[in-house]
Each structure stands twice: as C-alpha cells, then as structure tokens.
C-alpha cells in the first residue's frame, strides 16, 4: 500500500537523534508487547504483522513510537482474530487504570497455553512449494525496470524504486511473495539483489558515487526495454 510507512527518500524528518548507551527497552511494557507478539506470531495471519502496522492511520503512525505501533497492531490482530473483544479490552484497561497496583495474573497452565498456541498455528497457511526447480527469468548483469505496482494491500516494493532502471547483481534463493496478491500468484519467486545508481533514483540531487541495493521479487521486475532497443515510453 502507498502508506506513510513507505518513507524512503522523503524529506522533513529532521536530523538523526542519537542516544548514548541506549537500553534495550525504555519502558517495561515495550518488552512485554514484543514478547507477547512473538510468542504467538500467527496472531497476525492472514494479513501479516507488517501490514497491520502499515494500516495504522497515517497521523497516528507518525505520532506513535516503534513499540506503540507494535501495540496498536497487536491489538488490531487480536480483535480481527476474535481472540479478545473490544469491550473486554476496554473494561480491563479501565480496571488497570483504576487499580494501578493490581498485578497481571500469572496462571501457569502450560497445557492450556500449549493447546492455544497450536490452535493458532493451524490457522497459518504453510507454503506448498519449496521453491526448488524455479528457473530465474533474469540473470546477473541484466538491466531491469522496477514495476509500477500500486496495490492497496501489502507490498515490499517501495515507491522510490518503482519505474526506475537498475542492474541485477545477485540471484538469491526463492522466497514466498509477501504481497497481498491473488491466491494464484502466491508462492515462491526468485529474489534478486538489484543495484540502482543514485542518479537514476534521485536525479541531480544524488550524492556522488552512491548506489542503492534492494531485494526484488521477480514479479517486481520487467525487462528494461530501453536497454534492448525496444519501446521505453
């Protein structure tokens, strides 16, 4: 999706702010959120955790910290999956606001936790193809053009390379396409490392001697017609 998360090349975010000796977590809740989400990773299926983060409204996305975005998207995943309801979450939130000293329960029921985790895992769809036997369409050194794909679902093709011409520098093993494409287009594809010259991406604003390398699933690429003398309009 053409969301606010796709920020490569944008201006206006100011200088890089550095923090000396930064702790892993600034607040204990940050560690709880990331640990919970990664304990039940399938909770984000079938959308994918990244898509749920990208789906946070842009004004809220920009106002939220990294872990606040994890929290918002985790909550979204739990509600979409029906694992909790909005009513019980609000009620529980009210309870902890009114009872700041109340502890989170620690029901150490391993068997229950195991079976709940397994239920979630079954709902993820494992891929049927392992990617072996797929013949890459492009070779190292080929001039390729990034497709101009603008889907409203998830994609890993950022705006700043779309329509730009680069060079294949390496062919990686196949990876499942993560984009929200029709079922028939899902599954593994060759992934290429593609180099884009700074001037191709940024024109005269490019810095000297600057190259950008990005991983491209095969469906993100088209042959560069200009390089073979074909139409390039």
């Amino acid at each position, binding site marked *: 999706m053409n969301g606010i998360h796709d920020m490569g090349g944008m201006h206006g975010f100011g200088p890089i702010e550095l923090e000396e000796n930064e702790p892993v977590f600034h607040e204990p*809740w940050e560690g709880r959120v990331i*640990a919970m989400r990664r304990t039940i990773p399938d909770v984000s299926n079938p959308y994918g955790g990244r898509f749920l983060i990208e789906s946070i409204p842009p004004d809220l996305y*920009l106002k939220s910290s990294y872990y606040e975005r994890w929290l918002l998207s985790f909550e979204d995943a739990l509600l979409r999956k029906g694992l909790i309801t909005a009513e019980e979450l609000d009620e*529980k939130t009210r309870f902890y*606001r009114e009872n700041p000293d109340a502890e989170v329960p620690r029901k150490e029921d*391993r068997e229950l936790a195991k079976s709940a985790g397994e239920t979630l895992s079954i709902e993820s769809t494992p891929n049927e193809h392992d990617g072996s036997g797929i013949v890459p369409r492009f070779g190292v050194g080929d001039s390729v053009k990034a497709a101009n794909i603008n889907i409203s679902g998830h994609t890993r093709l950022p705006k700043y390379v779309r329509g730009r011409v680069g060079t294949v520098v390496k062919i990686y093993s196949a990876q499942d396409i993560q984009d929200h494409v029709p079922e028939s287009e899902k599954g593994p594809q060759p992934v290429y490392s593609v180099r884009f010259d700074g001037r191709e991406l940024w024109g005269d604003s*490019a810095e000297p001697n600057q190259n950008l390398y990005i991983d491209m699933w095969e469906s993100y690429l088209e042959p560069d017609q200009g390089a073979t003398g074909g139409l390039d309009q």
Partner: protein
Amino acid sequence: MSGQHHGEPEPYPAIRTKAIESLLIEKGLFTGDAIDAKVQAYEKDIGPMNGAKVVARAWVDSGYRERLLANGMEAISEMGFTEPQGAELIVHENTRAVHNVVVCTLCSCYPWSVLGLPPTWYKSFAYRSRVVIEPRKVLKEFGLELDDSVEVRVWDSNSDIRYMILPERPDGTESMSEDELAELVSRDSMIGVARAKTPAQVR
C-alpha cells in the same frame, strides 16, 4: 509494573499492555513466564556482542572471513548463533574503496541474532527516509565523513534477507587477541554508520 510512584499515573500504553497480557493469560494463550523468558532473552542473550564476536573471528581467521562473506547464516551458526526470522544473512565488507550501510525503509528489519534489537535511531523516520537519498549527509551526522572517491552502497532490507556489515579492522591491532578485538566492534560499525573503534578509543 512495580517501579511507578504513587500519584504519577502510568502511561496509556503501559496500562493497555497490562490489559492485553492479562486477558491473554486468562484465556490460556501463553503463560506469564513464557513472556518473562522472552523479555529476558531480548535484554540479555541477544545483542551486538554476538555480532562483535563474529567480526573479531573474521579479522583473525581469513578462512572464517571467507565463509562469512560467502554464507552468513552458516558462518554465524559455527559460533552458535541463528537467525530465526530471516532466511538468509548476507555480510558485506567495508573497505577503503567501498562503504556499505544498512537500512529498512519500509519497517525496521534488522539482524536480531547478531545485533539484538535495533536502536531507536535505526527505527526513526529520519534514518529510514534519509539514508537512501543522502547517505553521506546521514553518515556525517554519525561522525563519519567519506571522501567522494569512496563508493557508498546502501542496502534496503525489504525481503527476508538480513544484512550485516563487516567493518574494516583498525590499524595498530595486530597484536590484539580475538576477545580484545571484539571490544572494538560497535553495533553502529556493523550497521555501517561508523568505523570500528581504534584501541585508543576503548582505553
């Protein structure tokens, strides 16, 4: 959370997180100690000290260096590290002629197994937006100035491949042990926004 002072209300995300954890434990999705263990692992077990050991090994053992550059996953697993979230780990070497730097513009993909969880600046909008368009200016803000003759390669990690940088070994470190060398390897040097420290800088 026990660290709060009375009269100072807990921030909303902290309360909301407690509410969610409480509901999910009540429903049996996981146990409290499973979450404790993961938090502990993020804070103690993973971190840039793992990557630093890998880099120091590559500096002293040319065979290991070659294996690391050829197949990052296999080479880090020789040292007991794995990258569960990514299919591949690719290591690029910084030299006098080529400087590599890593970003994830779309989210904040990062090689957790060798570097731990990413620092705030790596996840910041400023870094994600700027390092692809003006890497030299960004590196300068980290205190790293590169001559125009140095090629800058920015790696945008948008797939399941994770990238780590093998920084250049500083001069004057020939007599140092592998453990001493590891102390020169900062997290930032393995992302590519800094050079490895010199022996004088860690003394």
